[in-house]
C-alpha cells in the first residue's frame, strides 16, 4: 500500500487571512470521514498553493506566552490564565501561527516513509501531493494505525 491508498480527501481549507477565532470555528464544524464533526488540523491554502498547516497545537502555541515555553514555569500559572490569554489572540491571523515548513509526501510514497516522517517530526497528519505538487489528500496517523492493525490481523490469520 502507498500513501494514495490510505489517504483521506481534503474537505475544507483555511486561508492565511482567516482569524484564529474563525479557524477554531471552522475546525469545530468540519466534517470528517465517517460522519463525525470536528478536526484537529487543517491545511492553509494561499492562491490554491499549500502555504501552511494549522493544528490545535499551533493554536495552543499561539495562546501560551512565549516565556512559558522557554522555561519550566508551568507550575506558576493561575486559574483563568488560559482563558485570558485566549481572548488576547482571538484576532490573530492564521498566517501568523501556522506551521510554514509543511512536511508532505508524494502519493507514491510507501507507508513506511509516511510513518518515518510522522514519528521523526512528531506529526498527526501529512498532506499528500501529486506530481504537480498539488495537495490531493491527507494521511492521518489513524490511517497508519489501520495499516498496522491489518498487518497484525494478517499474522493472526496465518
Amino acid at each position, binding site marked *: *500500500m*502507498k500513501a494514495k491508498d490510505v489517504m483521506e480527501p481534503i474537505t475544507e481549507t483555511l486561508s492565511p487571512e482567516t482569524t*484564529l*477565532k474563525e479557524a*477554531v*470555528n*471552522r475546525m*469545530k*464544524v468540519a466534517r470528517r470521514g465517517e460522519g*463525525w464533526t*470536528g478536526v*484537529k488540523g487543517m491545511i492553509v491554502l494561499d492562491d490554491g498553493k499549500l502555504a501552511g498547516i494549522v493544528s*490545535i*497545537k499551533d*493554536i*495552543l*502555541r499561539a*495562546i*501560551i506566552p512565549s516565556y*512559558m*515555553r522557554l522555561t519550566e*514555569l*508551568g*507550575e506558576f*500559572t*493561575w*486559574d*483563568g*490564565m*488560559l*482563558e485570558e*490569554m*485566549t*481572548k488576547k489572540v*482571538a484576532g490573530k491571523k492564521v498566517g501568523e501561527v501556522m506551521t510554514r515548513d509543511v512536511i508532505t509526501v508524494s502519493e507514491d510514497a*510507501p*507507508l*513506511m*516513509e509516511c*510513518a*518515518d*516522517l*510522522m*514519528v*521523526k517530526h*512528531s506529526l*498527526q497528519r501529512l498532506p499528500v501531493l501529486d506530481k504537480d505538487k498539488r495537495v490531493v489528500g491527507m494521511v492521518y*496517523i*489513524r490511517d*497508519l*494505525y489501520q*495499516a*498496522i*492493525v*491489518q*498487518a*497484525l490481523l*494478517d*499474522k*493472526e490469520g496465518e
Partner: protein
Amino acid sequence: MKAKDIMEQVKDHLSPDDTIRDAVNKMRVVKRDDGIVGVKGMIVLDREGNLVGMVSVKDILKAIIPFYMTMTELGEFTWEGMLSEMTKKVADKKVEEIMVKDVITVPEDAPLMECADFIVKHNLQRVPVVDREKRVVGIIYVRDLYNAIVKVLLNDKEVENI
C-alpha cells in the same frame, strides 16, 4: 477551570506485560466519551494500579520503524510492504519495552494553562490527571483543551449559525 473540570474518565488501560498485538487490539475497541470507537493512546498500570507508562500509536510506530531510519534521513529508501513486514517483527514485543516511562502528569487542581504548557512543550496528545496520592483520576486530551478554547472564543449560538 481546572484540570479536573475538563478531564475525561479512564476507560481502559494496558499492563506492562501486554504485547503490542494486545495493545493494538485493546485500543481499537475502546469507546470514547464522544461515541467514537478506538483511541490512539492508553495509560499503562502495574498490578497495584500505579501509573508506570503510556503508549500511543506513535510509540507503536516508533517500535515498528527500525531505529536506523529514525536517526538518519533514509526515509526515501523504503520499499512497499516494509511497514507490514516490520510490524509483524515486533508484534510480540512487550508494552513495557515500548512505553514512555517518564509520564508527564498534572495534578487535578492544575490551571488549564499548566496542562496546555505541558501538552505543547512535550508535544503530547493526552496527559493523565493525578490526585494527591498520585493515582490517575482522569485524562485530558488535546481536544478537551480545544473545547475550552472554543468556549472562550465562541458562544455556541455562533457555531450553530454557520
